[in-house]
């Protein structure tokens, strides 16, 4: 039988991996991967806390958690499309996907 803590621990691991990726990677696409992994960790937490009983009693928050995750997934899809477009434009302008080289907007 799975407990709530198992899912929360997986979510913590995914979040840690996402932070590692955001901190070390310089390729813009890898940063997108890291952000997607972190969004998935958050979604997993939402559904997990919504499904288990003491949290799921009043007015069926289980459905509420799932509803928010549906919204979150749709938002993440929009975000991925915009990031990919920005990466393509940045590549066309600078011939590079290294984010530490994109300094034209640096103050």
């Amino acid at each position, binding site marked *: 039988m799975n407990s709530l803590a198992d899912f929360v621990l997986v979510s913590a691991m995914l979040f840690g991996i996402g932070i*590692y990726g955001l901190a*070390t990677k310089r390729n813009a696409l890898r940063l997108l*991967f890291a952000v997607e992994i972190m969004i998935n960790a958050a979604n997993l937490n939402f559904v997990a806390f919504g499904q288990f009983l003491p949290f799921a009693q009043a007015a069926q928050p289980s459905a509420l958690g799932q509803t928010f995750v549906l919204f979150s997934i749709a938002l993440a899809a*929009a975000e991925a499309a915009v990031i990919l477009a920005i990466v393509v434009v940045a590549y066309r302008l600078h*011939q590079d996907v290294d984010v530490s080289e994109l300094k034209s907007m640096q103050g």
Partner: protein
Amino acid sequence: MADPTFIAMMVVTVGSAIVALEAKEIVYGAIGLAGSLFGVATLFFLLDAPYVAVFQIAVYIGAVAVLILFTVMLVRQERWAKELPTNALSKFAGIATGLAVTIALAFAVLDTGLFSITQTNPADFVKIGELISTGYAPVLEVLALILAASVVGALTLSRVDKEEKK
């Protein structure tokens, strides 16, 4: 104690997340990301949330992962595929930060009584549909606007002007 299925899917999810970030070729990284998203979808199935799981597979693997793969393969350039070197210090700092966050969160979880919570109360589709179409209908409409705006924005950004082309 967790089921064997859960442990297997946990290994798949976390393992392919690491592959997504560490694979030499970025195409394999994108496939690793798709694997990780699929792993999260199976965890949703294990959580008795099949609707969210199917939505995750349709949107993330069907749209986002395929979009990334197409971008990587259509704009096929040497520099995209190559892994940019990170210096040892920042790599160490990144691993340390990630591990510290994970361990801190894990200790916070172990400190609570979450392990004793095993009983689920799965919601039915009707309730989700009701929430989306009544109380949260404005959110849905704003989300539709955001999606439309982001698609138009992405198209405008990535359009190649005729003068620019030559």
